[in-house]
């Protein structure tokens, strides 16, 4: 098996094509949301005391700095070193990401409450896991595109796309997508 490179920031060969892929993913998520309204990506909550400040904006933008390196970086690579193929490792990290997102933000921090009221608990939780899992899977594809032409995996485009999505939701003053 060839050496599996750790993902970092910079060094990728296809930054712009990767970034455009991520932008397409965002459009796909919007389409999914219009077809299946319960498919919500819950985002980190911003405490009311800083919601109107730059700290609130930075907070929501900085979340990908912790989520992307773990799920698309270290955890994915750990799975690959266990002998899993790219698709297998990607699917597993995506499912973990989907469950993490729904548990941490949706249920523990209560961001899914309004969706649960609208669609019922089962549909809301399933929709949230599904949406975040698809997003997580697509983000590793975005990272893989930076490895074209012999480049090393670059997390930056995925981080920018992820932060952009969070920031857009934050600016629209909604906690669910």
């Amino acid at each position, binding site marked *: 098996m060839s050496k599996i490179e750790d993902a970092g*920031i910079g060094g990728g060969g296809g930054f712009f094509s990767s970034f455009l892929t991520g932008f397409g993913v965002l459009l796909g998520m919007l389409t999914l949301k219009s077809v299946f309204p319960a498919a919500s990506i819950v985002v980190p909550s911003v*405490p009311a005391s800083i919601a109107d400040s730059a700290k609130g904006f930075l907070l929501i933008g900085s979340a990908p700095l*912790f989520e992307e390196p*773990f799920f698309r970086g270290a*955890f994915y690579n750990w799975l690959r070193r266990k002998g899993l193929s790219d698709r297998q490792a990607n699917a597993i990290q995506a499912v973990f990401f989907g469950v993490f997102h729904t548990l941490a933000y949706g249920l*523990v921090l209560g961001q899914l409450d309004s969706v649960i009221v609208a669609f019922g608990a089962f549909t809301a939780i399933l929709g949230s896991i599904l949406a975040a899992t698809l997003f997580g899977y697509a983000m590793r594809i975005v990272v893989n595109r930076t490895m074209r032409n012999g480049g090393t995996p670059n997390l930056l485009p995925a981080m920018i796309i992820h932060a952009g999505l969070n920031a857009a939701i934050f600016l629209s003053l909604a906690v669910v997508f």
Partner: protein
Amino acid sequence: MAIKRFGGRFAITLLVLFLFIVTFIYTNFPELRNVALIVFFIGVASYFFQTKPKRLRKEVKLLVFFMLAAQAFNVYLMFTVPDYFRQGMVYVVLAVMTLVLLFRKEQNE
């Protein structure tokens, strides 16, 4: 040198201790909570010193640098912003797991 030699066991012990103490987060012991965090970061630092990540690529070192910078901001918010502690803890755990996986891999090579 003591940190270097016993860093691994020391860090794991502290991590377990932290997980035990973190259960008190949902009780009304803010002082205990703060002490637990300080102890936790000492554990992380000792792990870092013990593994000496020489072979990490410069892009990965850059990522670690940004993660630590963002973590400093995160911890600052945890102690200054009401209702943020639990969410901030999620990011602390994610960052630590990332660093541990990166450095463990580096150690095994």
